[in-house]
């Protein structure tokens, strides 16, 4: 028979959970409890699914499904993608260059459907509205450099947070143009190359460099691992040195190289961020870092970025984190473009846009980067 202990325990527990749910406890205890209110995914879980949705092998996600924990995670958050669910580099919209560091770029002028939304590549080779012709007194050109969320995988170009931000800022009277240089699947080492090689020819006057899961998770070195497994030159002396120290030798398979490079993740992350910032300083291009999470996997990114805090403190650049963008949405999985693909929907992009706009309005340092002067703005 059910005992007194069962009844007492239930009543006490229910009462306690209700109280902690309804009322805020002051101090760090309250903060801790507040964080527990939000369902979270561990870094490894997020990586497992990140590996699947960020144009990567689904193997990693599937392999982790062998355990009950893995199965529960994958069954409650993940669905099988259809066999024809595309990865950008498998589409006709990319140009492969076996000799290039980036391995692939978007094909200028191409038009195709990608993850349920039309994707048109402009004449400059980016997924954005056509860039305005450069003139002496033209709008201030701001570049945003990122990966697939910023590129707007699965949403129409007008609904990317970048274009919505551009429209909002222009409506507020700022004479700016935001050009979107994001490419789906690009990792940190590739974003750096975009900064070093593309910003100057495009006459960029300010840059927002995006840090996302793909740039800091354990598979962030996959691009380099692929180059090395194909026997190609990693282009940058620093990367060659890391490969050397990691004991990467010719003939090694990609996953083995990735495993060897993994302990150098943080070092490489520090390198590409500081190199990008240094380039910006050397070229008098104001730069800010933008941290953009996926819906329902905010915590793993927050944890990883927390590990980068010492680096950020030395950089002395504005950093805008959009962790709280999705807070008001209870079931953040509703913001995924598909049950198996966690790129944010148009609604998710709208939330990112609002969060970023709010940050810009409140922060003089960010305004300084974007507008070239500090303009205090009452929100």
């Amino acid at each position, binding site marked *: 028979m*059910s005992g007194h202990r069962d009844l007492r325990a239930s009543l006490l527990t229910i009462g306690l959970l209700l109280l902690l749910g309804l009322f805020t406890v002051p101090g760090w205890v309250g903060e801790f409890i507040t964080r527990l209110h939000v*369902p979270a995914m561990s870094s*490894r879980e997020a990586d497992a699914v990140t590996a699947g949705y960020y144009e990567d092998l689904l193997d990693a996600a599937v*392999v982790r499904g062998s*355990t009950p924990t893995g199965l529960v995670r994958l069954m409650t958050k993940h669905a*099988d993608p259809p066999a024809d669910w595309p990865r950008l580099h498998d589409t006709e919209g990319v140009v492969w260059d076996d000799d290039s560091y980036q391995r692939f770029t978007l094909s200028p002028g191409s038009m195709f459907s990608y993850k349920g939304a039309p994707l048109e590549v402009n004449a400059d080779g980016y997924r954005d509205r056509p860039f305005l012709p450069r003139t002496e007194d033209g709008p201030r050109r701001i570049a945003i450099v990122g990966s697939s969320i910023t590129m707007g995988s699965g949403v129409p170009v007008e609904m990317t947070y970048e274009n919505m931000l551009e429209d909002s800022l222009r409506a507020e009277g700022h004479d700016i143009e935001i050009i979107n240089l994001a490419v789906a699947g690009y990792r940190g080492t590739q974003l750096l190359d975009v900064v070093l090689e593309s910003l100057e020819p495009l006459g960029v006057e300010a840059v927002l460099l995006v840090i996302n899961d793909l740039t800091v998770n354990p598979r962030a070195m996959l691009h380099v691992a692929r180059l090395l497994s194909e026997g190609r030159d990693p282009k940058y002396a620093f990367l060659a040195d890391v490969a050397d120290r990691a004991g990467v030798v010719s003939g090694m398979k990609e996953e083995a190289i990735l495993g060897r490079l*993994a302990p150098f993740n943080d070092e490489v992350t520090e390198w590409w961020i500081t190199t990008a910032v240094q380039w910006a300083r050397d070229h008098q291009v104001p730069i800010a870092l933008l941290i953009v999470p996926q819906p329902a996997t905010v915590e793993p990114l927050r944890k990883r970025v927390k590990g980068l805090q010492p680096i950020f403190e030395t950089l002395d650049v504005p950093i805008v984190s959009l962790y709280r963008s999705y807070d008001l949405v209870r079931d953040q999985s509703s913001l995924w473009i598909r049950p198996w693909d966690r790129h944010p929907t148009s609604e998710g992009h709208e939330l990112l846009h609002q969060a970023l706009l709010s940050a810009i309005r409140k922060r003089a340092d960010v305004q300084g980067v974007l507008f070239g002067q500090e303009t205090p703005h009452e929100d």
Partner: protein
Amino acid sequence: MSPEATNPPIRWQSSRPVRFLLLLAQLVGLAFIVHLWNIESTLFEDLVLLSILGFAIHYWLPVAWRYRFFVGYSLACAFVILGIKASCGLFLIGLLIYGLLRLPIPWWLRITMVILLGVALMVARTLVGHPWVADGFWPLVGSIFMFRTIVYIYDVRHARNPPRLIDFLGYFYLLPNYYFMLFPVVDHQTFLVARGRKPLDDCAQTGIRWITRGIVQLILYRVVVLYIPDPMTATTIPGVAGFMVMTYLLYLRVSGQFHIAIGMIHLFGIDLPETHRKYLLASSIADFWRRINIYWKDFILKIFYLPIFFRLRKRGEIQAAVIATSLAFFATWALHAYQTYWLLGVPLLTLPDTLFWAILGFLMVLSSIREMKHPRPHDESWSLGRVFGVIVTFAVITTLWSLWNTPSLDAWVRMISLRGGGA
């Protein structure tokens, strides 16, 4: 010491409406908690509300109507939670299985047809993305039928009376299973025996207790998630040990969900046994096996271990136990791959997975031999020996669990040799 002595039964003195209100108040409190703490998803909230509604109606029905109501209500809720397409598909498959097993033809022919149906469904499983098939349909089919069909066939084979449709429907179409894809392998005989054997008030209170326990475990799981170290950068002994322990504790999510699922069934007067029994306090490998996912252990025991043991016991009990245990773990390994096929679309056969089951199976064989030679009575009392056993068992299981959770043996070796890259 029996549970009765430490947990004296409630002598419900109050009137039935008062008892009902006390139970309902707890359930409403739990529903609020699910909402306030964002437990699971909005679909889970729907499940909770449906369970409470069902409980509230079921409670006041005459005893003779209660089980029928549970069956009908569970079937109806399938349409609400899963939609018409998926529900109809599930019912069709179930009725096919039931119908085939009731055909007036030789038993071997009936089994062959059910197996062929199963194979056809496994082939059809590859139709992911087909417009006729709803998203998530196949994992649902697997979750409901992949193991319980095996148990059902085993019981029907030996049943004294022909199986009733209403028992079939109640056993397979369990309301919480529409949400929880990874679901305890409910035993058919246990399900039949458990119906109405306990007074409804007591049964529902136990259910509430387990739902509460499950929710607490899901919240504790979030604590683990917040603090689990990054395996790629765990290159110190405390870091690796912390990662390994936390990886094991991620299992709280499975345990939590199982508690909630079975707790919900309790609300309808079905006194199913607990799914986990303080597995973190297991004092030996055999004790661990008996405490973690008890339903799986009982499934393997019933379908594989005991039949094999009984067939071989004339050769000697120890030899029979060794062979039966080995084959039981082989079956566990194979059925996990089978389960992964149904739930994820790929049969998972990895080296870490194989090693995990092989090592655990080997340790269980040793344990079986020891228990055969030196039978020990059931003893939950604490002693220094038991404390030592708990610590050692926890360390062993944590280590094995970390192996199970790595994508490759190389990655695991790198991790335990403090070179990072554990997952």
